């Protein structure tokens, strides 16, 4: 994982990270920029826990985990952490990139118990593994579900009788044996 260096291309209109931020967390990120006046940090799975711990110790601290979700970027997966300040104006985005297969990330449930369910959902929907998660089972999907539904290359299992296509709905005339009569009527 550490061999691949995540490549992030900042949009031309987004200014780079401010020097204050660079001084605060520069050693724990691989890229950073300012988007909509809020910092956006990109880090690696190895540095993630140290970065989030430091963000919690800033003044004022980023003590609210607003959202945690996975993103399918095509060649790799991404996990996005949105942080807020309980006693300040700023929000912040932390992005971590993992390979499509065998992506492992440290769990942040020790920092924010809220991350428990969000990590369970991201794990089942994108096939990620959060090491150190206290309850690593499915949240929304039934047990035994095959595949990761929110990946772009997911294909529905149409052999499942619950999900199989319905010929009566797809082509009702053929299913009811009325196809020939219908075409005859239209020719006339």
């Amino acid at each position: 994982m550490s061999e691949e260096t995540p490549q992030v291309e900042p949009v031309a209109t987004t200014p780079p990270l401010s020097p204050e931020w660079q001084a605060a967390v520069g050693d724990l990120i691989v890229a950073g920029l300012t988007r909509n006046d809020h910092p956006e940090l990109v880090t690696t799975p190895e540095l993630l826990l140290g970065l989030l711990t430091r963000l919690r110790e800033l003044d004022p601290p980023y003590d609210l985990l607003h959202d945690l979700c996975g993103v399918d970027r095509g060649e790799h997966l991404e996990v996005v952490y949105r942080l807020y300040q309980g006693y300040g104006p700023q929000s912040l985005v932390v992005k971590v990139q993992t390979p499509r297969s065998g992506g492992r990330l440290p769990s942040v449930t020790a920092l924010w118990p809220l991350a428990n369910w969000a990590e369970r959902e991201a794990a089942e929907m994108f096939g990620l593994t959060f090491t150190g998660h206290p309850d690593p089972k499915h949240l929304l999907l039934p047990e035994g579900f095959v595949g990761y539904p929110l990946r772009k290359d997911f294909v529905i299992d149409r052999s499942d009788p619950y999900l199989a296509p319905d010929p009566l709905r797809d082509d009702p005339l053929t299913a009811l044996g009325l196809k020939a009569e219908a075409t005859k009527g239209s020719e006339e």
Partner: protein
Amino acid sequence: MGLREWEDKLRHLPENLPQPPEEPLRKWARGHHEGGMSLAFLKVADKALDTARACSLWWLQFGLACCAIESMAVGASRYDLDRFGIFHRATPRQADAMLVAGTVTTKMAPVIRRLYDQMPEPRYVIAVGNCAISGGRFYQHAYSVVRGVDRVLPVDIFIPGCPPRPESFIDGLRKLHDLIRQESLADSPAVEGRRPETYLHLRELP
């Protein structure tokens, strides 16, 4: 089995067969017709019992998605299902009909099936809304939605709509009333073949 054959079967029941406790109406009929119920009495009894059943339909109270909000509106005072004798019951053991209102997911389908199995006969199922009928807007691309609740339960009435208007609910309800009023004691579930319970056991239940 036809009515005449059923009557013949009643007449020729062996006397030592263990009989269920005799209902008052049946006892009265036996007194007036040697060996079994007369056809005239059967019609009267059918009318009385079907009317009673149709006019006190108790519904299993549960909802799955936004159609359940609409079913709450039907049950509330503006449309007032109470005037049809309909009450929501919170347990399947006291319910006559099940209103599958909403999106049936693959995770929820075994639960619905279990609720249905706990309801006493005769029981009726109404599929409300496009999602319960065929998957609705989730038909093409959803990974978790059952394409129609009739893959899980035998459905009597379908009410289309997304969600259906309360008037549609009441219309489907009246169609269920018509269905109940067509039933006869001769086809009672004690006799085989009243309603073919060809369950769609597509999946093993957990």
